[in-house]
């Protein structure tokens, strides 16, 4: 089991060049839970995730892990506690799945130390958890988008960190594989207590899998809390500029967002919601 880690951002201001992207944001990542960050394109989700994992130095404010500022911690030590799968990682030409997953062991290896059996166990476990065992000897650039995504997740798992950040881990995946990846991360959270923070674009999957949901709009925290508290018709309108209807997901009991566009709305559909409610 992992130890509980406290991670928080305090008055975080982030930017690139002279552009400020995130402004004085306060945030707490609950230990041992699954936190999902949602928000429209370019609102600063990836920027925030990069800063929480020390990849981007804040303009102001700080990120505190277990009472220590992450930007002052030794890089390798932090990398044994906190892992990140970026939004668009690159695989070197011709590298095999096994080699790529093996690179996740980097923070556990000393300068000239040899590969050891602990590394083999970690890699095998990561392959098995992501069901990529059969791909182990294939070249990564020959895989389908979905297979490649699972391989990258395997690399992050091989790092065996107590906190795991993932930037849009379900892009490129079909519906079944999206669920598989989210189930896998939930398993990891349940069995090892791994704290997971991820960015998802699918609000319904976010509400389904999050213990803690954070909505970001334009570089500011809009709301944070349980999915039921955060995924409301008002917040969807405020954050995404989208009209919607929220009903109870009959499968999970969590909120389910039905978007309302300009087309395919059947007459009197706003009553449909209430009719349906009455039946259940």
């Amino acid at each position, binding site marked *: 089991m992992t130890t509980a880690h406290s991670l928080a951002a305090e008055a975080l201001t982030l930017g690139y060049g002279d552009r400020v992207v995130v402004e004085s944001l306060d945030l707490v990542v609950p230990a041992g839970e699954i936190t999902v960050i949602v928000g429209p394109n370019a609102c600063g989700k990836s920027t925030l995730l990069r800063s929480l994992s020390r990849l981007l130095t804040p303009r102001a404010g700080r990120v505190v892990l277990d009472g220590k500022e992450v930007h002052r911690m030794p890089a390798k030590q932090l990398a044994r506690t906190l892992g990140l799968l970026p939004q668009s990682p690159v695989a*070197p030409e011709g590298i095999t799945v096994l080699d790529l997953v093996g690179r996740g062991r980097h923070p556990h290896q000393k300068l000239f130390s040899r590969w050891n059996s602990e590394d083999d166990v970690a890699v095998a476990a*990561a392959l098995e958890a992501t069901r990529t065992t059969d791909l182990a000897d294939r070249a990564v650039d020959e895989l389908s988008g979905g297979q490649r995504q699972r391989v990258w997740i395997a690399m992050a798992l091989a790092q065996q960190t107590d906190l795991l950040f993932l930037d849009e881990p379900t892009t490129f995946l079909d519906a079944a594989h999206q669920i598989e990846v989210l189930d896998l991360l939930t398993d990891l959270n349940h069995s090892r207590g791994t704290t997971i923070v991820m960015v998802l674009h699918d609000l319904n999957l976010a509400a389904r899998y999050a213990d803690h949901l954070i909505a970001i709009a334009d570089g500011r925290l809009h709301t944070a809390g349980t999915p039921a508290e955060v995924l409301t018709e008002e917040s969807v309108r405020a954050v995404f500029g989208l009209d919607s209807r929220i009903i109870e997901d009959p499968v999970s009991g969590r909120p389910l967002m039905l978007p309302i566009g300009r087309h395919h709305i059947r007459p009197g559909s706003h009553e449909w919601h209430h009719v349906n409610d009455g039946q259940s």
Partner: protein
Amino acid sequence: MSAAVRPALVQAVARSRRRRASRRGLVIATLAVLAVAAFAVTLMAGQTFYPPRDVVRVILGEQVTGASFTVGRLRLPRAVLAVVAGFSFGLAGVTFQTMLRNPLASPDIIGISSGASTAAAIAIVSLSLGGAQVSIFAIVSALVIALLVYTLAFRDGVAGTRLILIGIGIAAILDSITSYVLSRAAEWDLQEAMRWLTGSLNGTAWEQVLPALVALVVLTPVLLSRARDLSAMQLGDDTASALGVRVERTRITVIVAAVGLIAFATAAAGPIAFVAFLSGPIAARLVGAGGSLLVPAGLVGALLVLAADFAGQFAFDTRFPVGVVTGVLGAPYLVYLIVRTHRAGGSL
């Protein structure tokens, strides 16, 4: 997930890992044996053949009539410089190619070798400097060119394509400066000119070899200690940082060390054409993608220079400097790479 990993799977992973490691070890050992063999042949064979016994006695410092001069003064420094320069170019070349994730991003393509070469030519031909001063001139110039190419290519991060195109342009400017300097010099001969244009080992003396050898001994461990970090950086800067690599610090260390290797080797032997560019891809073919290519590429470079120099001296009716031979080998590969990247959609 760590609940229970199937032992059979762990063993399969370990086996596959060991198979790769032993293939790598085999390739490195074979390359090393070949390099030693080529080195020995270079010392023995030539206009006159000297048996291994004579060669060994010369190396041990004994006086052997004929051999002491031919082997000790002519062939030995030349062969040592072939190994030192070849290893330096191969190692520095693959370092750049790995770091910038592009086989075209080799120091002899993007102007760094040209920077060292132009500076060395100016120092020797125009300023009549020698020895360590030439090396210092070459390394400062190579670092300045590296910085210049990097700065010109920098716009919200360095994009590979822009860096390569700018580097090729700067290399062309520098090469024409070298030609100009050589054409203005009164007493230069063709041999000397060829050294700074394509690289040559003709007339190598020990005082030329020594600075390059010292640089190799000092800088190789620096690069090898960063081999793992470089492998992580192939996955992109963000992934590498997430794996605990200090990306900026590593990049600067590695650039300075690799540029140093290039500059010292170039000050001694000239920019031996395409060795830096070819060694990495050849090594990658031999050991496969995945593991670090630093040592294999260094060995390939040493072997290339030894073999090309020997061929240049004895395989044809006229004697060619080593750079002409490696140039003939490297040019088709450059064309192939450019054609291939064009097919792949135009971006490098």
